[in-house]
């Protein structure tokens, strides 16, 4: 880790009020400023890599809210992630990590077939039985939590169903390559279907390459930089085979990762790829005037949760709100602490359940006081986490992906 990145922190504390773990604990060790200081003192040899130090660092969500607030351009979340990644690289990938990160995750077909049994498990009614009997309590906690997070899976992943080329529904204005995130395809396929439909209605030909791989974010999370680069190279190669104006994704996590391919691979084609990447809200907002004429009324009270990967990592805040406000009849209320993490944060909700639940609760309390009927967001991790939270604590509020709501408004369906 570059020392200068650590001493750039002037300890002003501007990052404290936005850090979810500081807000919960008021502890300097659980603050961005504290985390940078721990890393710095580690590097200076004043502290050792003690269990406690690692524990303090691992409480970081890598939500990067601190980076948005920092006047000095310090990114505590990223520094902690870099440290974790480095440690894991030094240790080498374990057998399971190797299996999951290198062999399973990058290849959608393998990932999809591994989900087969789960789907069967849900459909056969065994899930219900298991849940009612509390059989999962017998499994280790992480497994139990993972199970609890899973909503009902679609019959088939979208990737297997979608045509590679969806023609523009009217006079063609351009071509977009659609980067279909793994979780979007496997779990939130309705939302990605809505995304494709919106793009096509606006006159885009949508190309969804069948052979695209995972964006590589899970590898980064698992400390596998090399694996991430392998995915990135393959994706750059695949998309360069098509003549597209933009590469669009409706997954905040994928978008953030894809935009950094240029940075990671340090080559021209990767930079060109990254320069074309847009979050779906960015592209839709370009056509706001047209959209306004196409949307039909929805009488709904709606609020919006900013996914960290969209607000903090990509700096996109205005577009999703603007798009929601285009829908006639819709009442938009701003969520208090809208851009605070929901506690999902990759696998954080499985690894640090207690803190994750505290952060989730705060988010849900804010949703409650917003008085909204529908919570909108646009990242699969947030969708999973919030869906579970709402079901347990606030069942009267529904959650939807931004594009689902917009597509429904375009159809004139009541939600």
């Amino acid at each position, binding site marked *: 880790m570059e020392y200068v990145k650590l001493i750039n922190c*002037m300890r002003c504390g501007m990052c404290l009020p936005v850090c979810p773990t500081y807000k919960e604990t*008021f*502890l300097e060790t659980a603050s961005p400023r504290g985390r940078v*200081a721990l890393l710095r*003192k580690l590097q200076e040899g004043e502290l050792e890599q003690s269990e406690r130090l690692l524990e303090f660092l691992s409480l970081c969500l890598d939500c990067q809210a601190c980076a948005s607030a920092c006047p000095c351009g310090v990114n505590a979340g990223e520094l902690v992630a870099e440290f974790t990644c480095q440690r894991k690289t030094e240790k080498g990938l374990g057998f399971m990590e190797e299996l999951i990160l290198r062999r399973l995750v990058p290849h959608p077909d393998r990932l999809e077939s591994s989900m087969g049994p789960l789907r069967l498990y849900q459909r056969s009614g065994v899930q219900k039985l298991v849940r009612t009997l509390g059989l999962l309590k017998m499994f280790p906690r992480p497994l139990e939590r993972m199970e609890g997070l899973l909503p009902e899976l679609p019959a088939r992943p979208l990737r297997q169903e979608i045509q590679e080329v969806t023609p523009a529904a009217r006079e063609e204005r351009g071509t977009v390559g659609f980067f279909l995130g793994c979780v979007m395809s496997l779990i939130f396929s309705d939302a990605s279907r809505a995304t494709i439909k919106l793009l096509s209605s606006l006159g885009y030909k949508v190309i969804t390459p069948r052979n695209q791989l995972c964006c590589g974010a899970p590898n980064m999370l698992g400390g596998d930089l090399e694996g991430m680069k392998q995915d990135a190279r393959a994706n750059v190669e695949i998309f360069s085979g098509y003549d597209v104006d933009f590469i669009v994704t409706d997954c905040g996590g994928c978008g953030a990762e894809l935009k950094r391919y240029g940075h990671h691979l340090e080559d021209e084609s990767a930079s060109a790829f990254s320069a074309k990447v847009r979050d779906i809200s960015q592209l839709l907002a370009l056509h706001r005037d047209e959209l306004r004429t196409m949307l039909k009324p929805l009488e709904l009270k709606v609020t919006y949760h900013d996914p960290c990967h969209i607000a903090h990592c990509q700096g996109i805040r205005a577009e999703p709100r603007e798009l929601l406000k285009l829908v006639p009849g819709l009442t938009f209320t701003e969520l208090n602490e809208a851009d605070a993490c929901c506690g999902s944060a990759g696998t954080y909700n499985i690894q640090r359940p207690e803190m994750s639940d505290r952060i989730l609760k705060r988010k849900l309390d804010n949703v409650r006081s917003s008085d909204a009927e529908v919570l909108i967001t646009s990242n699969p991790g947030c969708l999973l986490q919030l869906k579970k939270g709402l079901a347990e604590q606030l069942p009267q509020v529904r959650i939807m992906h931004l594009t689902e709501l917009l597509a429904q408004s375009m159809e004139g369906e009541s939600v």
Partner: protein
Amino acid sequence: MERSFIKELQTIVGGEYILTDRESLAVYGYDSTPEIESLPAAVLLPGSTDEIIRIMRLCHGAGVTVTPRGSGTNLSGGSLSAGGVVLQSSRLNRLLEIDEENLTATVEPGVITSALHRAVEARDLFYPPDPGSMNISTMGGNVAENSGGLRGLKYGVTADYVMGLETVLADGDLLRSGGKVVKDVAGYSLNPLLVSSEGTLGIFTGITVKLIPKPRGKITMLAHFPLLQDAALAVSAIIAAKVIPATLEFLDKVTIRCVEEYAHVGLPLDVDAVLLIEVDGHPVVIAEEAAAVAELCRKHRCSFFQTAQNPSEALKLTEARRTALSALARLRPTTILEDATVPRSCIAAMLKVIQECAKKYDLVIGTFGHAGDGNLHPTCLTDERDPDEIKRAHAAFEEIFDAAISMGGTITGEHGVGLAKKKYLPRLVGESGIRVMRGIKQAFDPKGILNPGKIF
């Protein structure tokens, strides 16, 4: 610190709220002050006034020192402890009351300044002090440092709003001073002593502040000046014309360059100074005031003047000032932010001194700040890994402070003395000043256990 003593503290606050591990102590060894670190022996996060009373009784008995801390954002080393107890007040964060009949708010010390703003503004009331750190600074810290802010020129500083304090003294006794009454001449005025006491006289556990009606309107203006002298003259002229803007902020040439490079807000690089001016109050009055400001700026040869027509335009105009610190701080690893303050008629002279010092010591110093009240923030951009440059920075600031004193100004307008400015205080207040201050300290804390080593 002895284990048995730590055990006793533990029984007061509970195991979760006492930290003695190396890692925790290491990160409580700093605040926002550059270059100063000092390790405490324990950190406590009490949850009630009663716990604080018990902690103080215990520490007083054992002669253990106690340093109060809010969010640790002060710029003078005030919240650092050498081998004693740090007492962080963040958990005492309840907003106890907004009294709309008496126009007061009562808070616990851990309440964040901007949270108080939001709460009172929701009721059309106004708590003006707005330090740049208001999103994280605590009310306890604000009172202890007598913090100022952008609205200081028209509305004053924290001291102008503190009406009542509840303070735990060094021996654990509770002192109540002031209250909700507007007039009170019973005995010595203790509040002004306690405000800006930097944690050396007592620990605030309750704070009652004055509120005022929220101004009905605000007009934001921006002016560019090719010549520094003209900007300074414009400031004097505005005030002489009996217009008191809520905000009258200034950016110098170095800052302008940095802001433009970093944020591309459209500042020309050939101007010497930018003024951000905001007038607030009754819509009819501020329209007149804004017109007067515009005329005076033009008369003093501004090269550009804009009045915001709506809130989003206003936000745009304030962007340069808002990004000033970020833009400067990004340039080099180490940022030393000072707050020498002079009578406002001396602003131009002070700026000249700062520029000369930067040149003489071969430093980059960007200056921005509250031109209206003479409180400037010369900000030295340096690198702590370069000891020679750091030495030159200190030499430059020493000259700047001496100049401020000779102009009838002060070494610190709002950041406090703490450890960082201790050495300069005698030059400002003289031996008699120090003697009286020591006497006051003695009266409050004869054993000297509260935040020792600070101020003098």
